[in-house]
């Protein structure tokens, strides 16, 4: 994850955050260790898209637009639609984000978000076939990050799931009837950071700057693991991971309560 502009945070601030977590089990902004920031979801923000959502997670803000277009399936999966996920870390979101081809960071975020949606089988891709091997529906998930204050993976997952859950397949463009995108479940990713030996949920940027390791766990309603991703150069013990899975199950349910019905 990007560092702040000078790649330094003052020692004082760093110590303050660490001490607060160590001594009080409380974070710099007053949250408990396993407490998410406030989530606000506004769907249908881009009426011209097939589905859309603006999500703020604390001071992080992302816009997701779904486009669904008729096209060719992949040769090895003639009987299912196509899903593709792209995340743009717009330069407007942070001083060191640059325009240009996707960075390693944006690719990792997009791929973790994509895996959570794909592996949970949230979208019933089998129902997106117009004519096998010839024409299927291609679902483009595009996410613009416009304000960055930490935890993009979860903000982007929330935005993508919310936009998909309200999306409509524009079948009228090929002479059929529009229909809601067939959805089977609502996955939620929960990203945790290890700071010192403490694991916190939904980190903000300052926490990302002092953390050693990151773990994202994505589950669906069935309580099964659908995707995981450890990031950053630190480590987790197996016990920490097992505890994190438990936490993510609880926090994921809270997130799911926020999703549009």
């Amino acid at each position, binding site marked *: 994850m990007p560092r702040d502009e000078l790649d330094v945070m003052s020692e004082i601030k760093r110590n303050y955050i660490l001490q607060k977590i160590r001594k009080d089990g409380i974070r710099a902004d007053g949250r408990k260790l396993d407490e998410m920031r406030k989530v606000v979801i506004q769907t249908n*923000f881009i009426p*011209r898209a097939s589905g859309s959502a603006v999500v703020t997670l604390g*001071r992080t803000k992302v*816009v997701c637009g779904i*486009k669904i277009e008729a096209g060719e399936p992949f040769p090895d999966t003639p009987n299912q639609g196509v899903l593709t996920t792209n995340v743009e870390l717009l330069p*407007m979101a942070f001083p060191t984000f640059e325009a240009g081809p996707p960075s390693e960071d944006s690719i990792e975020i997009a791929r973790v978000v994509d895996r959570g949606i794909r592996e949970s089988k949230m979208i019933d891709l089998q129902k997106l076939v117009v004519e096998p091997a010839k024409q299927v529906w291609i679902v483009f998930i*595009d996410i613009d990050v*416009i304000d*960055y*204050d930490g935890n993009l993976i979860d903000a982007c997952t929330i935005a993508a799931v919310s936009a998909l859950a309200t999306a409509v397949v524009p079948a009228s463009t090929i002479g059929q009837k529009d229909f809601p995108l067939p959805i089977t479940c609502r996955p939620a990713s929960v990203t945790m950071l290890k700071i010192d030996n403490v694991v916190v949920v939904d980190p903000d940027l300052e926490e990302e700057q002092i953390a050693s390791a990151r773990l994202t766990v994505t589950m669906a309603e069935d309580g099964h693991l659908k995707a995981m991703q450890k990031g950053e150069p630190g480590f987790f013990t197996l016990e920490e991971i097992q505890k994190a899975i438990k936490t993510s199950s609880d926090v994921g349910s809270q997130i799911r309560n926020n999703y549009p019905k």
Partner: protein
Amino acid sequence: MGTASDKKLFDENGLRLDGRSPGDLRPIRIETDVLNRADGSAFIEWGGNKIQVAVYGPREAYPRHMQNINQAFVRARYNMAAFSVDERKRPGPDRRSMEISKVISEALQAAVMVELFPRAQIDVFIEVLQADAGTRIAGLTASAVALAAAGVPMRDLVVGCTAGKVDGKVVLDLSKEEDNFGQADLPVAVMPKSGKVVLMQMDGDLSIDEFNEATSMIFKATERINQIQRDALKKNYASTAQDWGE
């Protein structure tokens, strides 16, 4: 300009498809300081356009050889979100967006007091989230507000508006269908205090008389749009004052 078509763009009362008279603007709403990280920001809705603008700077120009020892330069980057248009757009700049970035940069450069910040650059990022005709002019109008909200010293704001020709009539602020099937498009931006023109492009077919009619419509409209800009900034200053008062 657009493709020829039999499409009727006026009703029997001479009103446009969306009910506007030839000289009417679409609804415009500007909000400032909607982002936390940027030094200044503005969000504009103009008809169906939804455009987010953020300003960073003045900051040291990079790379070094771009630095001008006499003044700052304004670098606008106009970008369309993949989902902003009917058919999904591949991310990244194309030739159209590069040209628009250039003319917007030049228009803003004229208004910012660049001489106060030698060696600096001021970045203006314009993200079109939903496109509905007139994005360059809407993005530029919002950019001026975002610059002011960032505290960048300016000679004046910059206000843009478009006129065009539809079914042989000159009309203000083309809608998407009028843009697609119209006969001329004239985007203009001015510094409203002085009426100085800092952006002008045109394509299609306009007689000299039509051009004069169009510019006169635009100049009148920019006064109204400028008022919306100033109201947005006032609201912002008001809330800032309130913050201080607490």
